[in-house]
């Protein structure tokens, strides 16, 4: 069963009562909320995702709730609860779905230490993955959104999961978080992309989520071998420029962008060394998305 199989009233009731157990890649999330915004966001963005049995194991138990008291009515806010505990400061109620997304990211980055977790987008073609690490503002989500609308598979927009056992990238396809100007840029670039409502005035500016391509969701059980490490940087006036990057510098970038590199000690160092050793590494300056996709397509040709 997938989320789209649930009639909207059934979806809303599950979210309100026992919780919706939805699988995203290797993890099962039990999501609860009484908020219509959350139900609407899940119906829009998670339609293709598998629904797990109601009594099955869930890795994360999360709830988006409205606080008691005056904040329920005056400038209403919402909380993200993890295992019944408030995990973050509250946010305005219109950010409820975005808060769910950020909270689910946190669940993975703070808990899934069976993987080396890198703050990176990851896309795949022909079984080979490109990792796009970068801090906020580097343009990785915009580039990722463009690529997955032109034939690349979405492995993750935000969290690249590197599996110690296989060395492969484990897919965690979830909605792509677009911010500020990139929302309109992707609307123009990919008219068919499904983009949810824009939420203004978040800590990241204006935010809207783009639905993951259905094929990426359906193939979430298929890992891919890391083949390229590409550090994107949006730079106006540049079409698309791919420049070789030394592997040692690529290593340091991935280590800096990893959430749990220090957790794994020497094992993390050796593993990351093996991953980087098997990749071609680049810096990538871009402004034009068509040119950027073309550069990636050339990169992936045998």
């Amino acid at each position, binding site marked *: 069963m997938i989320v789209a199989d649930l009639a909207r009233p059934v979806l809303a009731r599950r979210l309100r009562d026992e919780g919706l157990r939805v699988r995203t890649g290797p993890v099962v999330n039990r999501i609860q909320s009484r908020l219509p915004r959350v139900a609407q966001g899940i119906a829009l963005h998670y339609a293709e995702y598998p629904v797990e049995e109601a009594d099955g194991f869930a890795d994360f138990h999360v709830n988006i709730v409205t606080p008691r008291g005056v904040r329920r009515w005056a400038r209403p806010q919402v909380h993200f609860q993890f295992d019944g505990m408030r995990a973050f400061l509250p946010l305005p109620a219109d950010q409820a779905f975005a808060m769910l997304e950020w909270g689910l990211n946190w669940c993975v980055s703070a808990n899934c230490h069976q993987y080396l977790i890198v703050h990176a987008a990851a896309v795949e073609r022909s079984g080979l993955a490109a990792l796009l690490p970068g801090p906020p503002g580097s343009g990785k989500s915009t580039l990722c959104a463009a690529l997955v609308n032109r034939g690349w598979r979405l492995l993750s927009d935000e969290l690249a999961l590197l599996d110690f056992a296989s060395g492969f990238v484990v897919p965690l396809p979830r909605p792509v978080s677009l911010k500020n100007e990139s929302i309109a840029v992707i609307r123009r670039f990919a008219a068919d992309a499904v983009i949810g409502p824009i939420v203004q005035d978040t800590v990241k500016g204006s935010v809207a989520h783009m639905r993951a391509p259905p094929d990426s969701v359906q193939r979430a059980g298929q890992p891919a071998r890391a083949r390229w490490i590409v550090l994107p940087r949006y730079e106006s006036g540049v079409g698309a420029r791919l420049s070789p990057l030394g592997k040692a510098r690529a290593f340091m970038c991935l280590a800096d962008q990893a959430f749990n590199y220090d957790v794994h*000690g020497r094992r993390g160092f050796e593993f990351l060394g093996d991953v*980087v050793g098997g990749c071609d590494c680049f810096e990538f300056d871009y402004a034009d998305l068509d040119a950027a996709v073309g550069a990636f397509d050339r990169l992936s040709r045998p």
Partner: protein
Amino acid sequence: MAGAIPDPSSSALRWRSVPPDALAWRHWGEEWVVRNERNGNTHLLGPVAGRVLELLAHAPGPLATAELTAALDPTLGASAASVEDVLTEFRRLGIAEALPG
């Protein structure tokens, strides 16, 4: 205590790295990454620093700056002053220590 840390510019000093088994290395082209098991930190090293650390780690005993400089490949173009800079940085990072000569 004043004077407890030797002046790295002193030619009388001899240097040693943390034990080799406390270092993990990767080397690609002219750049290195090294992990220091004694504090868990990872560093990016350029060609001179990488080679200096390699020499220290595999030396039978502490080495003076002049010995390190002489042992480097001349094509690296490293001066004694630049090697001293590297050693000073190594000490700050906990990779090496200076011993009185």
